[in-house]
């Protein structure tokens, strides 16, 4: 039954809220809340407990700051059905991300002290706790706050005071919910837990109540827990590690192989732009152009104004390059001064190292060589 509940948790409110329809849908607001938090605190390692169909993880994988993403769920089948959405896309290979990213999925209980879950900066438990049996709920704080002990924990759960505003909801919003708490119940549990494990907690939520009924509180109540002391000795013993049912390592520029590709690509494209500008200018200067009497592009004041920044730089920098015979020499230092190349390589030495053997260079390796005419056979 849990399968169904977790699967359907994402769309239950929209379906039954009738007049209290949230835009964007409430589940999106919850995810957005987490995303904003990630954007603000830039955690490197994030775990989602009760990840279900991996939707939140899928959103989070676009966050550049995250290096490790983990999901845990008790139900393997939903996770397995949807896990492929966490695989790198073709684009991730073509334009690798700057930082590394590893995504893993674990099939297991949130009441289990899994050593794989250690060392996280942020742990999210979105609409999770209300699904826990009493015994699990009891063990939950010890596992999350005591054992995993991340710097931040986000816990969201339904606010039962809001339920009368949701048509069709009798006892609980979902059959599998073991309980639904009032604001007071949740806050006292949270404060108790926070106190016990050295965290502070702040309360907020998503899904505003209708005007005039503000005392009902948010439809979804959220507690954000922050660890008070960065270093607490972890002494609790871990249990058996759970099996990782899925693992994806994203290509990244941290990997020399991908970095080299990216640099070579950028160097060649920069060099080609400079070459074109240089040749255009030479042609103008020598008045050699005789194909079309119509005017040639004489200056780079693009009509499409997006083409200005790189253009200006390229025009300016093209002076450092020169043509000899039918070969254009573009100094590596020139190319290095372009922001995208610069950002990728960091140092000139690194640039030289990465392009060696990949790009045609002058004999002293100081300039990129391009032919003026594509040789035709």
């Amino acid at each position: 039954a849990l399968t169904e509940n977790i699967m359907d948790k994402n769309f239950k409110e929209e379906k039954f809220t009738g007049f209290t329809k949230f835009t964007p849908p409430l589940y999106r607001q919850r995810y957005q809340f987490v995303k904003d938090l990630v954007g603000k605190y830039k955690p490197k390692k994030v775990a989602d407990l009760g990840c279900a169909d991996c939707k939140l993880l899928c959103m989070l994988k676009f966050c550049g700051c995250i290096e490790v993403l983990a999901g845990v769920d008790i139900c393997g089948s939903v996770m397995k059905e949807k896990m492929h959405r966490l695989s790198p896309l073709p684009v991730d290979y073509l334009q690798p991300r700057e930082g590394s990213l590893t995504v893993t999925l674990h099939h297991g209980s949130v009441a289990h002290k899994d050593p794989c879950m250690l060392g996280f900066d942020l742990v999210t438990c979105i609409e999770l706790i209300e699904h826990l049996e009493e015994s699990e709920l009891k063990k939950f704080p010890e596992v999350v706050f005591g054992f995993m002990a991340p710097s931040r924990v986000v816990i969201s759960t339904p606010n039962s005071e809001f339920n009368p505003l949701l048509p069709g909801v009798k006892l609980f919003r979902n059959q599998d919910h073991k309980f639904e708490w009032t604001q007071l119940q949740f806050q006292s549990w949270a404060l108790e837990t926070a106190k016990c494990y050295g965290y502070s907690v702040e309360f907020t939520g998503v899904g505003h109540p209708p005007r005039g009924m503000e005392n009902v509180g948010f439809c979804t109540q959220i507690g954000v827990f922050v660890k008070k002391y960065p270093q607490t000795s972890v002494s609790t013993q871990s249990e058996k590690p759970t099996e990782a049912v899925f693992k994806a390592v994203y290509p990244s520029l941290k990997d020399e192989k991908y970095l080299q590709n990216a640099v070579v690509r950028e160097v060649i494209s920069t060099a080609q732009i400079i070459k074109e500008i240089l040749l255009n200018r030479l042609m103008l200067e020598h008045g050699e152009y005789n194909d079309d009497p119509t005017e040639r592009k004489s200056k780079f004041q693009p009509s499409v104004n997006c083409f200005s920044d790189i253009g200006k730089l390229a025009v300016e920098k093209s002076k450092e390059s020169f043509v000899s015979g039918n070969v254009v020499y573009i100094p590596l230092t020139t190319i290095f001064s372009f922001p995208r190349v610069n950002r990728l390589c960091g140092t000139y030495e690194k640039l030289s190292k990465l392009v060696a053997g990949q790009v045609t260079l002058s004999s002293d390796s100081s300039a990129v060589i391009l032919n003026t005419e594509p040789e035709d056979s």
Partner: protein
Amino acid sequence: MTGRARARSRGRPPVLESAVSSVGAASVHQVLPVQPPGRQQPRVYTSLSEEPGGRGCQSERRPEGLQISVGFQELSIADRGGRRRDFNDLGVNTRQAIEHVQDSKTGTSGVTIKLTTNYFRLTSRPQWALYQYHVGYNPEMEARRLRSALLFQHEELIGKTHAFDGSVLFLPKKLTNKVTEVFSRTRNGEGVKITITLTNELPPSSPTCLQFYNIIFRRLLKMLNLQQIGRNYYNPNDPINIPSHRLMVWPGFTSSILQYEKSIMLCVDVSHKVLRSETVLDFMYSLYYQVEEQRFKDTCAKELIGLIVLTRYNNRTYRVDDIDWDASPQCTFRKSDGSEISFIDYYKRQYNQEITDLNQPVLISQCRRKGGNTMLGPVVLIPELCLLTGLTEKMRNDFNMMKDLASHTRLPPEQRQREIGRLVEYIQKDDNVQEELRGWGLSFDSHLLSFTGRVVQREKILQSGNAFDYNPEFGDWSKETRAAPLICPKPLDNWLLIYTRRNSDTANILLQNLFKVTPAMGIKMNKATMIEVDDRTEAYLRALQQSVTSDTNIAVCVLSSSRKDKYDAIKKYLCTDCPVPSQCVIARTLSKPQTVMAIATKIALQMNCKMGGELWSVEIPLKEVMVVGIDCYHDTLSGKQSIAGFVASLNQTMTRWFSRCVVQSRGQELVDGLKACLQTALRDWFKWNKYLPSRIIVYRDGVGDGQLYTLVNYEVPQFLDCLKSVGKDYKPRLTVIVVKKRVSTRFFAESMGALKNPPPGTVVDVEVTRPEWYDFYIVSQAVRNGCVAPTHYNVIYDTSKLKPDHMQRLTYKLCHMYYNWSGVIRVPAPCQYAHKLAFLVGQSIHREPNLLLSDRLYYL
């Protein structure tokens, strides 16, 4: 453009071709923004082909009752984009109507050859069947996810292996009862009665089963962590990098499972996906610095429209149909919930994608497939968020680049076989995949299918009383026939040679060399009228207007560059307003002294054909037969027109050809025009022969995957209709053969333990053909590198009563008759002529050429 350059621009390597297929998305409307408000409804290209590279253009109708439900397709393919088309033309059974091939459709002549092919047998345990159930819910449940969740609460009943689309359930086992009722509970505690009713027990070869295999196979490929792009699957972990061209090539596979002659088989071929790590915006930037400002937008459109782009935030591919220069990412659009949002915010919120360039234009992609019940509108794409795939026209014309690429993608037989075997190896090694296969009771042979083919007798090239043999290994007789006189040389009494001042030397070199090479051919030649012009289009046109008379045999223009506008203007003028054969030559092709003689020879031959001359022939025993070739060209650029080239033989030796073409604008049926073509062709035949042909054999090229049904049910009846209208007593025998060049089938000849390309003339009509068709493969051409691609011939209508062997022989003979190449080609000459004609009209002329030229090969 020279003939060669044009051929090159068209002649994409087949491996790449098959890889670059566009794929839409089934549920685009959920995720992708619709067009920004306030825009006019963009053009809708209903008649435009869906295949890149353009194939076929009929409106599509499919046989009913064999499609697995829409939901299933979604379950398997569409979750990463897929289309609902019957690519394999399942259920079009044409053989049953052709009486004389009921018992056998195989030929008999030639010597046998041992072949292997890229097929693997699918095996299942005896008495295997697939069980199809209908699953009903009471009360009715809407959401598919919910329906699955409720059903799979009963996994102990259903088992681990299953496929379910929300209403149809496939199981490898039969449930005890025909109707099973189970109860589930929803989250609200509502009780739901689920009724599982057995509706079908499918034998392994039923069409539904075949589609099912393909769905399961896609699942397996996904499990192997291959990335789906378009219809094929690619391995991203081991790309081939070509940094100098900023390209990346992913190796991968194209696969399909079908019922073939004797068994169900998996056909696997190597596919390569050309990917570019450039975004469309990067590409626009670099283009900006290469062209003049005023040509920038046009050039952009020319390079980009028709390309397939990959979006960076999901794994969908789109075809670029238009560029909207007035729009930008700052434009807003209305979401499905009615709220308005800008593209910048949308992509930021939805995918965390920053759009940095706020003034870039946007790309428009028309969605050509129906998504569920709603027709999807145009999709707006942001250049910065789209990556290019495939090659642009410019890259295709870059000889060095194509050479580089071919060295990676054109695999010789041995290597290709190894790569193909790799997929089966992956399948056999992966435990999860094996478990899934075991669950369904299926497995694949581990060896490529081997069988025996035939190599038919070699043809002799007949030229003015001489019969020449040629080396079958090269499939080329240019050396053998070099000094022989042509069957019908046309004199060059009165002809023009137009050139610019800069190229006056070149023009003279051409003239001198023509004087050297023409006597041996039997061509009488006078000195040309030499005309020097400025290097401007108008100057060329003025010279033509002033100097071309009704006596002019041919106008030869030496062009200084491959700029298309000059070429187009000349061709347009001389094909329509002033119908005179013309020959354009790019000066550079004559610049190398060591090759100039050979080139002059080729030009002389081409000029002779254009003036109505004949070069060679092969023996054609069949009498009173008119052979027709049809091919289509689709204007991918403007998306406006489709052109069908129509070519018909005029004489017994098939050395003279009548031609017409149909310029069809959007929404028009091609077939009406073809009827008119056939009528005029018959009239011309009568003029030439004083009687009407007793047999008509149509080779129909340019038919896309999944269009066979339309062809059989619309085009063929129209041909018959047309013949009926000729006269009451006129009852010629008609044969219609669909010619397909792009097939995944490859044959390897075993010779002394190694795999080689089979020799030209290899015919295969067993094992890998389809039982419901009268079809065969012929390898007619020879290739220097890579694997030779056989051509597939499907005789969809035939009252000729010709033995299959004769049909195959005739087809092969016709592959020798293309005068622009002294060798065997991939398709029968009429198809290639039709292609040339359609291409010329589609690229340069844009309307039907003057009928005064119709009995000459002016379009070569």
